[in-house]
């Protein structure tokens, strides 16, 4: 396996096994240095100044937008920079959601949704009188057609993840979009997990909205991308009000800028946009073919090794999965497993992964979760397995006692 770890300063600097990229990815040195260079050489407030430095900052910001657009097959004016996916979903909910929905309408979501593409829709349902309906998983942890058929004549919005941050399942978004459009609903797609692992193209999927966060695809914290079809974004009211999103401002009212500035109020995180561009470049230079090859080998190896452990309970959907594996050690709470692994400098996540409805539907309180980045390798998995054996050994003689 190729060694990508050397590209990532934090991982080359520490003795650490980082298996929590679904929470946040580590950053390659090219991203870190691009941001440093921006602050050292190119920093100014974009759009506002006539002077050359401001022009330079504007150009950097616009360049990042183009690269982000290209990355997901969109046009520049269909891309809005936000703080992260959560802010993006809230933007859509508060503007499109509240303006479009009324009593009797339905919002359909999958039970797999991350809280960021779930809780905002609860708000919209409560304020508008619309109903929230869920598509549940079958015993294979997949979304059957019978559940997708819940998207019906009353459905106005479908919220769906392209890849589950708990199960790693890759969702057939195209099929869901087709169903949604047939009944006149729009699709809000959570691309946060998938964009680091394989190509995601909004035009091929015909998604109406899609969101992802830079920090989960080797980019910096603090910037996210919201994609929306131009026609939708043009007809939505503004979200945040203030500078940059206006044209003329009188004492009592203002007129608003066109896309994308309409949704980018205030000074934007240009440095993070520069970092995002660099992260996309890193992914493109590596190539999704290499990424998919590396990660699918890793996933298969991890699954194979975990399946050998009789004390591990795996939650693996049928169908295509990547990047994420959730499991529990029988009889040992996920938090305890996490702490024991932490003592061996292995970073995994334990808890409900911002997906409480999903876990509840599976009859679980919490799971352990490992998730991969390019920098992981077989040795990481071997160390994980050793530590899991240790964790089980520590608890084994106490299991079965008492209750």
């Amino acid at each position, binding site marked *: 396996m190729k060694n990508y770890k050397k590209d990532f300063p934090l991982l080359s600097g520490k003795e650490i096994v980082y298996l929590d990229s679904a929470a946040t990815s580590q950053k390659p040195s090219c991203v870190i240095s691009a941001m440093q260079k921006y602050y050292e050489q190119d920093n100014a407030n974009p759009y506002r100044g006539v002077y050359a430095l401001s022009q330079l900052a504007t150009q950097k910001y616009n360049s990042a937008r183009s690269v982000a657009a290209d990355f997901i097959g969109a046009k520049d004016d269909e891309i809005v920079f936000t703080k992260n996916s959560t802010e993006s979903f809230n933007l859509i909910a508060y503007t499109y959601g509240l303006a479009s929905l009324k009593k009797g309408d339905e919002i359909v979501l999958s039970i797999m949704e991350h809280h960021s593409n779930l809780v905002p829709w609860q708000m919209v349902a409560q304020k508008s009188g619309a109903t929230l309906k869920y598509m549940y998983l079958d015993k294979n942890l997949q979304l059957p057609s019978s559940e997708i058929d819940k998207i019906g004549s009353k459905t106005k919005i479908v919220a769906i993840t392209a890849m589950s941050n708990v199960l790693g399942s890759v969702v057939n978004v195209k099929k869901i979009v087709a169903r949604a459009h047939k009944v006149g609903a729009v699709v809000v797609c959570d691309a946060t997990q998938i964009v680091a692992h394989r190509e995601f193209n909004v035009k091929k999927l015909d998604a109406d909205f899609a969101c992802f966060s830079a920090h989960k695809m080797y980019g910096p914290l603090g910037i996210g991308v919201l994609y929306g079809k131009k026609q939708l974004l043009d007809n939505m009211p503004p979200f945040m009000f203030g500078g940059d999103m206006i044209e003329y401002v009188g004492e009592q009212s203002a007129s608003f800028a066109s896309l994308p500035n309409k949704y980018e109020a205030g000074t934007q995180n240009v440095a993070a946009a520069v970092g995002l561009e660099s992260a996309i470049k890193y992914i493109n230079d590596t190539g999704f073919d290499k990424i998919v090859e590396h990660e699918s080998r890793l996933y298969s190896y991890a699954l194979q090794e975990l399946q050998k452990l009789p004390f591990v309970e795996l939650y693996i959907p049928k169908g295509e999965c990547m990047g994420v594996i959730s499991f529990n050690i029988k009889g040992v*709470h996920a938090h*305890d497993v996490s*702490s024991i692994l932490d003592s061996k400098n292995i970073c995994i996540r334990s808890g*409900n992964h911002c997906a*409480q409805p999903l876990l509840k539907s599976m009859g679980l309180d919490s799971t352990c979760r490992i998730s991969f980045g390019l920098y992981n390798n077989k040795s990481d998995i071997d160390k994980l397995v050793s530590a899991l054996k240790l964790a089980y050994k520590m608890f084994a003689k106490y299991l079965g006692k*008492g209750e």
Partner: protein
Amino acid sequence: MDLSSIYNEIVMEHSSNSPYKKNIGKDAVCAMGHNPNCGDEIKIEAVVENGIIKDLGFSGHGCAISQSSTSIMIETLLGKKVSQAKKIINVFIKMIKRESLTDKEKLLLKNAAIFENVSNMPSRAKCATLSWHTLDDLLEKLEK
């Protein structure tokens, strides 16, 4: 981090085989505590007569730290006056928050002092204190 300082014999025994994991029934008042982060759920039942904690029991599920902390809390507070119990709860929470304790305060904690190392694991603090806060709220309610 030295695992055996947290996951030691006492903690493991209390977590897996607590003599206090029981339902007391209709004589008891109860309170629920939970940690939405991880799904730790604790139900504490208490029988208080004439200002003395006559019986305590718990049920629910959670990590080894929360389960053992609950069990050791009960072991420490059973038979105590409510006023004394509240003092000890306060000291325990101070310890987890890494505030300094007097020697007298440390003695009050008895076995509960073994959770001192959890103060070095901020992400697990809520696991250790969940049941103590829950019982504290319950005793507070009873006084009203």
